[in-house]
């Protein structure tokens, strides 16, 4: 092994490690400061779970916000999967009048700024009796997820050999039975990617609940933790704030690490082609 090559390897290790420390530092710091004591706060000294206990009691209680976030996320993931799986199958395998128009209209969602669509949605959901409602919020998230999800699912269904489906249809299955029994299994990687994206987006989104939810008992986690930062009377309890960040980030980081293979592959295949 030449010394030049050894030097290059050492250079790589030093640079990559230094950068790794920079990228990891904020995450480690927030975990550390969420258990560290700070005079005058709920964890006055030493280390412990005082900040988390304060968080548990904050406002309506962190459990309420976690339940809200979980409900919105579950409805969004289920709704996105349902609409995108049916739609993706329809777009991949059938031809019907207005098909291209509908597909383009769905992709156009990507072109429209978040704020441009949320201001009228605020008025529209009010008229539909869905303002201040977690269901209304989920419907909005499903709409925002739809361009990516539909594109992904259409490509996934197109990649399945037609013979697989036709064999089932010749056996007398309806197209819906064929979809349910045969095709859904074949497009599972696509479904996982769509579900992961819907989960990350709806769990973490801040702007839509900020605008659409005004009742504090219906806040999702990001808005609830933000409201801790906004209390202008008295000092901000930074330790509890970081505890809130940890509670928000942990499920995402876990899902992110566990499903990284899908996430990365989803990008490399479906999402970026075309």
């Amino acid at each position: 092994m030449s010394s030049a090559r050894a030097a290059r390897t050492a250079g790589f290790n030093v640079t990559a490690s230094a950068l790794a420390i920079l990228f990891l530092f904020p995450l480690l710091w927030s975990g550390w400061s969420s258990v560290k004591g700070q005079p005058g706060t709920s964890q006055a000294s030493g280390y412990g779970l005082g900040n988390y206990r304060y968080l548990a009691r904050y406002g309506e209680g962190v459990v309420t916000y976690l339940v809200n976030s979980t409900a919105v996320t579950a409805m969004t993931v289920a709704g996105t999967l349902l609409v995108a799986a049916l739609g993706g199958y329809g777009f991949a395998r059938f031809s019907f009048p207005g098909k291209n128009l509908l597909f383009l209209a769905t992709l156009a969602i990507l072109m429209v700024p978040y704020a441009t669509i949320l201001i009228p949605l605020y008025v529209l959901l009010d008229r539909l009796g869905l303002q201040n409602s977690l269901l209304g919020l989920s419907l909005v998230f499903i709409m925002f997820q739809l361009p990516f999800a539909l594109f992904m699912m259409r490509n996934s269904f197109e990649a399945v050999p037609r013979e697989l489906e036709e064999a089932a249809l010749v056996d007398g299955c309806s197209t819906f039975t064929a979809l349910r029994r045969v095709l859904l299994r074949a497009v599972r990687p696509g479904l996982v990617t769509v579900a992961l994206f819907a989960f990350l987006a709806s769990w973490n989104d801040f702007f839509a609940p900020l605008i659409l939810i005004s009742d504090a008992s219906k806040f999702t986690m990001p808005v609830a933790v933000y409201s801790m930062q906004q209390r202008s009377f008295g000092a901000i309890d930074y330790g509890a704030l970081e505890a809130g960040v940890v509670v928000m980030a942990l499920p995402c980081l876990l899902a992110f690490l566990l499903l990284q293979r899908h996430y990365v592959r989803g990008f490399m295949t479906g999402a970026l082609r075309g």
Partner: protein
Amino acid sequence: MRPPWWRSRSFKGIGYTTPTALVVVVLFLTPLALVFWMSLNRWPLLGSPTFNAPANYQRIRDNQLFVDSIGFTLKYTVVITVLLLALAMGLALLVQERRRGTGFFRTIYLLPAGVGFAAAALLFYGMYSTEIGPIDGIMRAVGLTPPVSFTGSPNTALFSTIALVLWRFAGFQMLILLTGLQSIPLELYEAARVDGATRWQAFRRVTIPLLRPTLALLLVLSITGSLLAFDQFFILTQGQPDNSTLTMVMVIYREAFFRFDLGSAAALSVVVLVVLVALNVLQLSILRRDRTESEASS
């Protein structure tokens, strides 16, 4: 003869895509039409609307906050797009080769992308605080003079936010660049080396041209995202100091929910929409022209 199941396929296709059509019509096209209608009305947050076109549009010129926010948003967009792309390219080149540890480093650089953007902004809000934030102490320890407040002057506020956005998005852009880099055939690099090209020449003559579609995608994503910036400034700087870090979307939000003037917010939204669509069309047409030119020359 087609088998019987073929006969009604057109109807079945409509059936399968009905949920999609419902979502698109009710939750996208209807609000899109509504925002245009709202922009033509005096539309208070509470109370009934009255037609007043084109007053909402005429007043935009006098909305100094919005006019100033355009300049700031453009400045932010240029700075963050350049820095983010440069950092992501550095990371991608660093970990693209298969050697020990690259998989581990890739995962670490990508990890911040798993944290929600609002959560990341709140995290950095704590890091920048003088009460418990570590950055102040670290800067002193290495002999630098930290600013009195990381969000106290227009420049420090901007650069504190940029650090947050770089941390949160560099790994994500790196991932997309890696997919582009991996599609470049290794033979091209070998041919360049045989021809006596240096690493830098190979990068400029082989990597960059072949990476063009990926770079274009990242530029579109980054420019669109930055022009619509909201969370990072809303949480980290709240537009301060002296409204110097207000973005366009923040002004729209303010118009609607602090000044309770939905009509005016709708007019601003329509302006942002038109500019963004025009910009996207422009970017796409430039990219297409570039592509046909490079195909013609090769």
